[in-house]
């Protein structure tokens, strides 16, 4: 029984553990054990999400034929379709349809609350979120999508060669706690994935979702919570810090176990509110806790994207704290 037992966040949840290698290691099994996201299109009839290149219905640099066009000065002579042109006097140029990949825009909450972990947790919420973001990025990258981060500092992911660099960048920025920035605005014509604990006030959460989904009317809202936040496994007299808009205030609860039922009711209500908000802006809502295995979490995302009903929640062990 080491001293660390008495010191939450002492080593296991130390933020400095959050490195690129840590992320890649944590993501490894989930990446291997989950189906390829490209199958989302073929396997299911009504996928919420389609993968791969999508024709833009205008000429461009795609693979498919779009139209013939008379040669004009300035056109590249190499583009002349000699077979077609041989049929007449006019030189025709063969134009192709402009094809473009989808952009996935991810937003990762880096608020101070995300650093929380109960002593029985393996990952802090921030760590869990970072690994999840990595898994999703990698999966989508393999289907050919562009990954961009709404958080300005985190670089996007475009090819497999960037994976390691991407993981490091993700780790580096997830280590820092940055409050929600107003400048984080979602990209139009993209698929937003918002990862946060969303424990803020409902008005704040609505603002966030509205701003970050940027009227795409699609996307994912992933709420990550620690099991401790959901079940309140504490006992006895505690001092708590209530953080409101701009002031923090301490208050004491003499017997925290007595408040458990009321608390869980409030938490559940909050979660339902968030789900409602997500649907309001056309997003899917996924609720995860850090005790859930990442493979299952990835599968949850997959099912949600494929339009399947969510699997029954597993692994949310209610860790009982003790004094």
């Amino acid at each position: 029984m080491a001293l660390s037992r008495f010191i939450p966040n002492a080593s296991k949840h130390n933020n400095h553990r959050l490195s690129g290698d840590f992320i890649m290691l944590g993501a490894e099994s989930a990446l291997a054990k989950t189906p390829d996201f490209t199958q989302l299109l073929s396997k299911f009839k009504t996928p919420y999400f389609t993968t791969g290149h999508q024709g833009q219905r205008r000429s461009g640099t795609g693979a498919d034929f779009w139209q013939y066009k008379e040669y004009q000065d300035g056109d590249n002579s190499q583009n002349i379709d000699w077979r077609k042109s041989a049929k007449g006097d006019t030189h025709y140029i063969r134009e192709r349809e402009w094809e473009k990949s989808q952009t996935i825009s991810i937003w990762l909450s880096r608020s101070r609350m995300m650093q929380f972990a109960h002593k029985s947790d393996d990952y802090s919420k921030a760590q869990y979120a970072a690994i999840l973001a990595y898994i999703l990025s990698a999966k989508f990258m393999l289907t050919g999508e562009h990954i961009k981060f709404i958080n300005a500092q985190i670089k996007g992911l475009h090819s497999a060669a960037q994976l390691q660099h991407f993981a490091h960048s993700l780790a580096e920025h997830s280590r820092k706690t940055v409050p929600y920035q107003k400048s984080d605005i979602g990209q139009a014509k993209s698929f937003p994935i918002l990862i946060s604990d969303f424990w803020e006030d409902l008005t704040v959460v609505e603002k966030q979702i509205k701003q970050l989904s940027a009227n795409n009317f699609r996307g994912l809202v992933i709420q990550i919570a620690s099991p401790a936040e959901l079940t309140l496994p504490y006992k006895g007299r505690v001092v708590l810090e209530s953080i409101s808009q701009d002031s923090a205030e301490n208050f004491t609860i003499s017997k925290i176990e007595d408040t458990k039922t009321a608390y869980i009711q409030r938490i559940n209500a909050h979660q339902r509110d968030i789900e409602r908000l997500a649907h309001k802006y056309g997003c899917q809502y996924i609720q995860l806790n850090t005790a859930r295995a990442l493979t299952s979490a990835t599968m949850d995302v997959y099912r949600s994207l494929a339009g399947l009903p969510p699997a029954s929640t597993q692994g949310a062990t209610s860790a009982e704290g003790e004094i």
Partner: protein
Amino acid sequence: MPFFAHLSFISPQILWCLFLLPLLWLVFKAIPPQPKMLNLPTARFLVGLETENAASDKLPWWLKLLRVILFAAIIIAAAAPYIKPHEDISIKGESLAIIFENSWAAAPHSDAQKDRALSLIALAEQQKKTILLIKTIADHEKQSRITLTTPSEARSMVEHIKLYPWKANHVSLLQDLKDNTDKLKAAKTFHWLGHGYDDGDLQSNIAYINKLGKVDYYKPDDNDTALAIKRALNAEGRESHKSIQIDGAFNDNKKALRITAKDQFNNVLSFLTLKDIKNNSDTDISALWDGIEMQDIAPSYLQAGTFKHAASVRYISANIIKQRVGIATANNTINREESPLIQSLYYLSKAVEGKAPYNIAPIDNLITWKATLIIIPENYALSANDTQTLTDWVENGGTLLRFPPDANIKQQSKTMMPVELLDDERNIAGRLDWQDPLTLGAIPEDSPLSGIAEDKTLEIKRQILATPAMSNTAASWALASDGTPLITAKDLGSGRIVLIHTQAKPGWSNLPLTGFFINTLHRIIDISTGARISIDRNTALSTDLENASFTPYKVINANGDLIAPPNELNAQTLQNIQSKPLSHSLWPGIYRSKNAEIIVNLGDKINAIRTIYPQQLKASIKPYIKERNVNLLPYFIALIICLILAEWLSVAILTGFTPMFKKTTAKPLSTLLLIGLSCLVFSSAALAQTDEGSDEAQRANSLNLAYIKSNNPIIDSMAEKGLRYVANALEGRTALYDVKVMGVSLASDELAFYPVLYWPFTSAALRDEEYAALNKYMNSGGMLFIDMRNGRKISQTLYNKNSELIKLGNHLSVPLLSPLPENHVLRKSYYLLSTENIAGRYRTGDIWIDLGNSASKNTPKEAQDSQYVARLLIGANDWIGLWSDENADIYEREKALRFAINLIMYALTGTYKQDQVHTKAILERLDKREQQLRGRNE
């Protein structure tokens, strides 16, 4: 449970607080436990969910127990627990023997002595034994010291035991013990309740009792041993009330001591704090007397230290204080152009100096200053006004001393003379005269001056004569050799007028240069108070005084108080008083004859205080306070600190190690306690660190008197003791300080630190390397002083080819030696020493000294010019024997000590005193000393 049987508390009342501890349990119940700090992101969902039942008794039981134990420990510690020593003596034999030392030195701790005796008696009563009580001084000379009695009687005897202000007579005590061996045999253990000093022959007494049974010697703590205040000699070698010696067991000799002057009602008149006093070294207490003389008051006694007992007080003759000498002067009578040596003022003041305070002022001032004797020098012209004042003053008891007036003021000065004078003075032994100068003639028996030694060197060349018909009231106190009066006196009222018929300056006679002049003046000063002559060792004795019978006036008891003499105390002769030891027939106190008074102080009768060294006695030494109580308070404080830390740690564990600064609500109970307690502990902790330098650095920093260790422990201890005495004297009398004594062994010690090396010679059988060390020492600037300690002349020793000295010479590189020249600087380096003064225990030996390398320089004349400092001195007078002997004659020991001081000074200053600059001072000293010697010897 022997532990709890001896557990006691200094303030046991506090233990009642232990009953409050259950209350504490309730208090802990009421106080909610320290809340945990919880950093929950969802905290805001808990707002408004507080429950009201705050009194949650969630403290673990063991923490409560810990706190209760902590408070219990604090309460017990506050009651100051200690463990009483274990004491049970089972008495062997039929009776218990108590030897009670009731001599003077027992005074400071007689209570402890009595307590010990009473507890022993109580023990004997329990075990139904008889008591054998032996007092070292019986209550009466005829009474036996030894009583065999029942415990209850013994108790009343001990309660009423009397201390006597003198030493016990150990010889007769031993005799008593031997005579009562039958009684003594009943006892197996003898409890000797001692006072820490050896009264005479403690060892043989204890050795005798040792044959009968076990001896427990109870020794008081050094702080409780008695100090004695003794007479001492002033710089001029005379006994003086301004100089004392302190003797006794000091704590490392460094204790500051307060000397207090008190009047007969024990009021403090003046005091002086002495620091760094040494045993037996003369201490100048002039500062004390300055204070007293300024206040114009008369102390009754001096007291050393705070405890008043027979030896710590020194009673003073009232005369010493009352005597005040005024020398009349007008502005025109001090001739500043003339050399002081031919002015009478100089001789008068020198003669008075040291005897009594004196003042040179106009007559009116002198009378307000309360002079008891006014001297009118020859050049003072009495005005009519003066005559009137002086007449009144003399009639009220003053003494006026007059000298023949100078020719120019003869007419004015005719009044106020004891006899009517002829107009012309008589010139004897002028250039055209055949007559020899007059000398001193007879001193009439009834003259107050009788007893003053006649001085054959006195030569009177001019004299003033009285008219042949002398008035009846006048009397001659001394006559010149031809029968003419030399000193005449006349009573006037209750005072008197004295006239010396020759002037007090060298022109008329050599009177002012003689000891007779000083003694005469002192005697006149003595009687100027109208009281008795007070006698001390300096007083010139007449047959009248020697035969007088001195009756006890007051005696000093063991508490140092003056009380009425006991009935059995008889009148004594001066001889007896001065020489006999104190006993029931001679108490210390004030003895008076018709016209003289002698004060016997106990301190002067104790030759030397010999402290008892435990290893000397064949007895087990025990302190009066049997065993010290074991104070448990420190242990309790340690326990409390441990408990506080434990409490703090457990609270920290329970609340999850939140950093201290983040805490806003409550702190662990222990934090405050810990802060308070650590303040307490640190404030009381003595942080003094003794940072001792290396041994050699210490030796280099102080003056070390070193002697060569022989293998003979007796010689070594003598050398140690003797040199310690010399070192104390050096510190007391010279500017040297921090003088240490070291025994060195030639083979192993570095000799370079010692300016002079004393070798109490035992044998010349030294190893070669030891001789090499000595040779190196002498050649590199050291001074080796060999004391052959046999009292023989060096030259005689040398005739014997087998003598140790010859053997010594074979190994030691002896420089050319010659006998100590008469004018050698060693004789004047500090004191002026003549040949007889270079005596140690023997007077017969001589000193040979190394006067330099060149053979031609062995004549005294050339030696004087030499700047050479001797490296080797050989003497044979056994100085160490005298330095170390506490019972030696005070004057003999003083001589030996002076030689030692000269030797050290010579070693340290070399030929400095050889310089002609000092000659004038030396000559003056020589002159004065001769006068004194003459005055004392005859």
